[in-house]
């Protein structure tokens, strides 16, 4: 590569990162101002699911691995955080840390099994493992079965800030969301993220270049599961409930849908997708089974005609990665 080409590439890269920074700032400001006009608990839910979808996207969008069992991390972390906060009396930050650690451990075990197969098998294995976890929670006494763990106390952050104050909770959730988002952004643009993309594009080539492909995949799986757990633990404190819904396979399907609709492999897509889906569920909730039908239709339309997703289409229009 000539020096000029190198320079062009570097400047193109910094350009790309430059406009992504602006978009990130706009997004942060939007989320920070949103509670002035939108019901704050709803916005907090959106942020939790956005983080969940971003974590999922790290795996499919950059690693090419479709997990159909990400609900296991959301559900596990939800129960862990709720149990720790309610029964053991942990402070919120410790409860969330504990929940995230539980999800990381689960991701290590599930990932070690799932990465043994590729593509479609990988999806089926993660789905089956998640279903096993679901049945476990259905029977285990500490989850209280169909009732779930209710009235989870939000407690005092570091023993100082009372999170029952909605605005304090909002700032806390916003910080977690933006922190998680930045971490994913950093990972995607790190050498690790580049190797991950290389594996997605051509696994045999990556192996021949000497990369230990399985270790990269496992690491990506753990990272994705851990961040999904962070989202799940936070969500349990936001809605003060941990229930079976979060561990069910339909939740795994929903996160796939959010990411697909927003744009697979885009940085901001999962956030947009999560916001759309959660809003839709909120307004269509009284229609019951129609929500499932609408979700199915979005799936079919996205796959057949709209594979880039909302953000992917915009990025294609302005010819810049988003």
């Amino acid at each position, binding site marked *: 590569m000539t020096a000029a080409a190198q320079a062009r590439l570097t400047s193109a890269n910094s350009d790309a990162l430059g406009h992504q920074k602006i978009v990130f700032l706009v997004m942060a400001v939007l989320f920070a101002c949103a509670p002035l006009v939108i019901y704050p608990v709803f916005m907090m839910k959106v942020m939790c699911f956005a983080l969940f979808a971003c974590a999922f996207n790290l795996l499919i969008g950059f690693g090419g691995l479709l997990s159909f069992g990400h609900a296991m991390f959301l559900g596990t972390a939800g129960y862990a955080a709720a149990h720790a906060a309610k029964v053991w009396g942990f402070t919120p930050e410790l409860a969330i840390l504990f929940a995230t650690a539980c999800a990381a451990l689960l991701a290590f075990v599930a990932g070690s099994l799932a990465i043994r197969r590729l593509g479609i*098998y990988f999806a089926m294995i993660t789905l*089956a*493992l998640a279903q096993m976890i679901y049945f476990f929670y259905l029977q285990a006494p500490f989850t209280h079965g169909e009732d779930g763990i209710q009235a989870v106390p939000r407690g005092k952050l570091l023993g100082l800030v009372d999170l029952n104050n909605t605005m304090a909770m909002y700032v806390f959730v916003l910080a977690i969301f933006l922190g998680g988002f930045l971490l994913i952004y950093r990972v995607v643009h790190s050498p690790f993220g580049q190797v991950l993309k290389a594996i997605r594009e051509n696994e045999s080539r990556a192996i021949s270049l000497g990369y230990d492909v399985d270790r990269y995949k496992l690491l990506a799986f753990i990272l994705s599961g851990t961040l999904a757990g962070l989202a799940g633990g936070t969500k349990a404190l936001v809605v003060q409930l941990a229930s079976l819904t979060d561990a069910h396979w339909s939740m795994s399907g929903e996160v796939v849908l959010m990411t697909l609709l927003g744009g697979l492999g885009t940085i901001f897509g999962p956030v947009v997708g999560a916001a759309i889906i959660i809003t839709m569920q909120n307004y269509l909730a009284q229609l019951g089974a129609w929500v499932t039908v609408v979700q199915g239709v979005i799936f079919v339309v996205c796959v057949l005609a709209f594979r880039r997703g909302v953000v992917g289409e915009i990025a294609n229009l302005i010819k810049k990665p988003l």
Partner: protein
Amino acid sequence: MDIFGIPTQALFGQLLIGLINGSFYALLSLGLAVIFGLLNIINFTHGALYMLGAFCAYFLLTKFGLNYWWALVIAPIVVGAVGVAIERTMLSRLYKLDHLYGLLLTFGLALIIQGLFAHEFGSAGLPYSMPQQLTGGTNLGFMFLPNYRAWVIAASLVICLSTWFIIEKTKLGSYLRAATENPPLVQAFGINVPRMVTLTYGFGVALAALAGVMAAPIYQVAPQMGADLIIVVFAVVVIGGMGSIMGSIVTGFGVGVIEGLTKVFYPEASNTVIFIIMAIVLLIRPAGLFGTQK
């Protein structure tokens, strides 16, 4: 009479339930394997089409007064036609893309079908009575065998084995196996591969509908009846690997029996045992018991 401290009645009763469940696992995983072989798509709609088969039987009885035996013939044809329509209008557009898109599309279709039926019929099950010829049962001495259950096991075995025979031993089957290996070459020999793909998909989902009709008198006819089942069948497919037709039949029945025995000896694990077996198989033989790693 006891075996390992378990009354034989209970043991054989659960073994029978295991065999019944195994019949459905075998029929469904067989259909999945046939479809996967040619289309490289894991058909997530399989559970929804199994449910559709059961509803078909229910409508034929209540709306047209056609009994179970008619349903056994008509439901697979109707659902097979639905399958052909799905393949022609949607799946065929995705063959050039990553196979994961096929999975996502069929998942979306399953949501639509299940959602529509859940909206129309709620989540409660609708009863479907057993055909008169098969009510009652036979006393085998060590246990009581209801005739209908014996019929389901026998019918499923016959269907599975004939499918195996068609695919492994006939000329039509050899075309199919050849097209699985190398579609362009088979096409070059003048065989209409796209039509074969369409019919294979139709046949695979017709098997699911047949399983649905047979399940209707045992389980109730309900919109969600296929949703959880399909995940178990996925685990069965992972355990068996999709390399061979016989493999998926043996795995289906075998896993059903193991699940039944678990209900006797350690009921708490009966829901999870299949997934635990799957994890163990993945550790020892990642390609599945009958699969070949590509």
